[in-house]
Structures are given as structure tokens and as C-alpha cells.
């Protein structure tokens, strides 16, 4: 199957940041003129930026235009700084509709890297096929890139339908999701036995159980990994309140614990993309800056986790 791939070049990144006046903000990163970190989707070889964006809570703002315009600025910043994957779900209330409203207000050439990702979630009602159609309508897109099965609900039925849709070119990638460290055994069984492109689960400095089986299995099976809850909804950042950044922070180009938390995740070789959610432009800039600068090796990653856990 031939895909219209959206490669994000260094030139495009710098042009985009310059266009919105963000280059000075980038500081040492821009000076180094490094490209945002790209990761390969094993099933096709297509690359996507390692930092994506979640929409849980943050984009569930309803019809109030002031709130929608705030989110539009967040999304514009995301794309301007090289963002690609945006993840949502019918479980997230009005988030998909708000996302479509925002995408409608961003010129197509300013969001060329978009990798739309959403989910089928049975409790939302309607069949899986209807939910795919709903997602296309709500996102105002002709096709959703990554269609996942939310929390494995009715996964056998939905997976069969999604495989047919993928074969017909209706969706580009299919995947399964979980979060909060639940259902890992079932996720593992599906990863080992089903032809999925993506798997999504929670992984961060405080939730490292995926390192034991899920991440190695994903690498082994050629499954792209989306990491949700990188900050445990801000809880991990709160936990670092008042804790000074250790000396290694400067070595990997991070200036905050939030960046260290993200860099820890995206530096795992099996991770394809982390999807922090935010409603703040400043936080989006902070997140996206994590894609530049050196990555920690395995030894430093271990030390980072130890320093994070230390009182």
C-alpha cells in the first residue's frame, strides 16, 4: 500500500519556528540547529516526531470559543515546533470535536506532520465502523491515521473490522491501548499474536513495568509504542516540586524535571512517541524542546530514575 507520508525535515522545522518567532525561545537547541527527534513506525518505516500530544481533559472544553481559541494556540505551537501525533478518543467528551474545530483553523501546510490518532470505545455507542466515521467527521479529516481500540473493550470484534478497514485504505494504522498499568498480560498476548501497528500504554519514571516485557516485545514484533500519562497527569511533576535538577540535566539539554521525565521516556529505544497533554502554550514549548539535544544512554536513564525516586 502506498502512503502519503509526512516526513518532517530539519529545514521545515526551522522554517516553521522562524515563521512564528519561536527560534529565539529555543535557546541552545536552535543554536545547535538539531532536528526534532524522529522515530520510525516499524510496520512502514514512516517517521514521526517523538513528542506527540494527548487531548484527555485538556481539549474537552465544549463550545465556548474563548477556551477553543486557547487550545488552538496550543495546537499551533505544537505544529510549529515539529509536532506530529495527536491522540484522542470518543471517551474524551468534546475533545475530538474541539480538535477538528482547531484543525479547521490551521492552514494545511502548517500541519503537514499531523498524525491523527483516535480510538474506538464501545461504551460511546454505535458500531466500530460508525465510530470511525464519527471520528473522521469530528476531526474534519478524510481519514484517521491511527485507529486504536480503547482499553481493549470488545477488541476481537473491533480488530477484525479495523483490519478490513486498513486493507481497504480507510485507516492507515491500527492499534490497541491501555493505561494506568492495567491489562498488561492481555496486551502482551495481543501484541504477540495480532498484526497491529501500534500499542499504547503508560510508561514513565514511576511506572517502569513495561520495561520488563511490553517494550522488548514491541521491539521484537515491530510494533510502534505510544506512551500515555508521561507525567501521571502532572502528579510526577508535582512530586519534583522543590527538588533541584541533578548535574546530568545539563548534559542532556533539559532545564526542568518535566523535560527530564519526557526525555527519559523517549530515550527508550522501543518508544515511538510520548503524548503529554497540556492546555498551556508554555508547557507545550517546554515539552517540544525535549526533542532536541542529546539523549541519555541506558546507564544515565537508570540514574535519572534513581534520582527521581530519591527523597
Amino acid at each position, binding site marked *: 500500500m502506498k502512503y502519503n507520508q509526512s516526513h518532517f525535515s530539519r529545514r521545515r522545522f526551522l522554517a516553521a519556528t522562524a515563521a512564528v518567532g519561536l527560534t529565539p525561545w529555543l535557546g541552545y537547541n536552535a543554536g545547535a540547529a538539531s532536528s526534532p527527534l524522529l522515530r520510525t513506525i516499524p510496520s512502514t518505516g514512516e517517521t514521526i516526531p517523538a513528542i506527540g500530544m494527548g487531548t*484527555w*481533559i485538556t481539549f*474537552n*472544553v*465544549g463550545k465556548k470559543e474563548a477556551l477553543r481559541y486557547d487550545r488552538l494556540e496550543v495546537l499551533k505551537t505544537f505544529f510549529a515546533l515539529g509536532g506530529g501525533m495527536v491522540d484522542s478518543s470518543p471517551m474524551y*467528551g*468534546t475533545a475530538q470535536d474541539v480538535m477538528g474545530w482547531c484543525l479547521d483553523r490551521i492552514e494545511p501546510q502548517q500541519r503537514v506532520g499531523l498524525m491523527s490518532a483516535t480510538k474506538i470505545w464501545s*461504551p*460511546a455507542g454505535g458500531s466500530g465502523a460508525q465510530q470511525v466515521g464519527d471520528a473522521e467527521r469530528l476531526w474534519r479529516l478524510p481519514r484517521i491515521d491511527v485507529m486504536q481500540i480503547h482499553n481493549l473493550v470488545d477488541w476481537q470484534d473491533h480488530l477484525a473490522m479495523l483490519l478490513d478497514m486498513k486493507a481497504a485504505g480507510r485507516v492507515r494504522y491500527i492499534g490497541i491501548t491501555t493505561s494506568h498499568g492495567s491489562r498488561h498480560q492481555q496486551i502482551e498476548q495481543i501484541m504477540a499474536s495480532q498484526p497491529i501497528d501500534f500499542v499504547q500504554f503508560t510508561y514513565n519514571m514511576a511506572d517502569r513495568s513495561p520495561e520488563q516485557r511490553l517494550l522488548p516485545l514491541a521491539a521484537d514484533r515491530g510494533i510502534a509504542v505510544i506512551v500515555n500519562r508521561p507525567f501521571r*497527569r502532572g502528579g510526577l511533576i508535582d512530586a519534583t516540586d522543590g527538588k533541584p535538577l541533578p548535574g546530568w540535566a545539563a548534559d542532556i539539554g533539559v532545564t526542568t524535571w518535566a523535560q527530564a521525565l519526557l526525555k527519559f521516556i523517549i530515550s527508550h529505544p522501543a518508544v515511538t512517541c510520548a503524548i503529554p497533554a497540556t492546555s498551556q502554550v508554555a508547557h507545550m514549548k517546554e515539552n517540544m524542546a525535549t526533542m532536541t539535544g542529546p539523549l541519555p544512554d541506558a546507564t544515565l536513564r537508570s540514574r535519572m530514575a534513581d534520582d527521581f525516586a530519591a527523597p
Partner: protein
Amino acid sequence: MSFELPYSIEVFFSVAESYNADWFPAAIIGWLAMVMAVALSQRAPRITGLILGGVWVWIGLVHQIQTMADFNFMARVYGWAWIAQGVGFAVLGGVLSRLSFQVSKAAVVCVLGGLIVYPLSVLAYGYSWSAVPLAGTMPNPTVLVTAGLLLAMRGPKVWLAALCVVPLAWGIVAGISAYLLGFPLDYTVPIAMVAAALLRAWR
């Protein structure tokens, strides 16, 4: 596994503001209806039962199912529980006339808390008057007033106990929401309902 709400406190009050505006003057009528339900509780308990029933059905149908369900997938479930509770109040109090009311200090505290103190406290938090949840059209202040009326209510014990179930369950929902949204005022809802249920049981 942790609980999370799919919206923020900012969005909650934004929706409250839109809801009050979209259904204007329902919020005022609903609040006046609650005042009337309380005022008539001893002289005309059937009217009180009907008003209470109507208010709970309204909140279930219009606030939960029609408004909040867009933001929170659980709101549909909550909505049907509110409607069932409303039917219970209307049938037992209004149609069957099986309820009467006897005022107590604790009941007055809950009623005044829901009608006056709760909305004023929301204003004190810095939210606009146009976004203030009022008893009669929004769940939490309505449950506070209902807790007072349940305390004052007299009737068959089994039915009185049954009428406490949904408000008590909502108290738990409100308490969890207060924690998740970081809005301590709403801890008053579970406190009031648990106190009301315990006082009822003690009697």
C-alpha cells in the same frame, strides 16, 4: 487504577455559565421553586414533593443527560438516577401523599447552605454570578437542600431510606469530584448527605 474526571474545573464553570444562559430564566425559577418547596413543606407537603420531584427530573434530563453527557460519559448514568429519584419524590410526596415534614435545626442548616451559602461561596471563589450553580437547576446545591428536606421528612421508614440512596450516592460522586477538581466547597455535599442519612437512621 485512579479516578479522573474528563474535564477541568475551568470547563465545569464554563459549562455552568452556558447552561444558565441557555435556559434563562430557568435558574431563577428553579431557585424560587426550591424556596417555595421549603416554605410549603409543612403546610402543603404534596406541593413540596411535586416540586422536589420536578427539580430532580429537570436536573437529570437537562443538566446531566442533555448538557454534561457531552463532557462526561458517566453523566447519562447519573441523569437516569436523578430522574428516578425525581419520580420517587413526586409519586411518594405528590401523588400518594405519603410524606410530611417536621423542621429541625440540622434541616435548616442544610437548606440555607444549599439555597444561600453555597452560591455565595462560589462567588467568593471568584467565579462570575452568571456561572453560579443554583439549587433547583444544578446538582450540588440541590442535594444540599434535599438533604435538609430529607432530614425533615416523615413517612414510611422503608421509603424514607430508599429516598436517601440516590442523594447519598451523589454525595459520593460530589466528594470525589471535589477532590479531583480541587474544589473543596463541594465536600459539603457528601458531608451533608452522610449526616442526613445517619441522623435519619438514628431516629
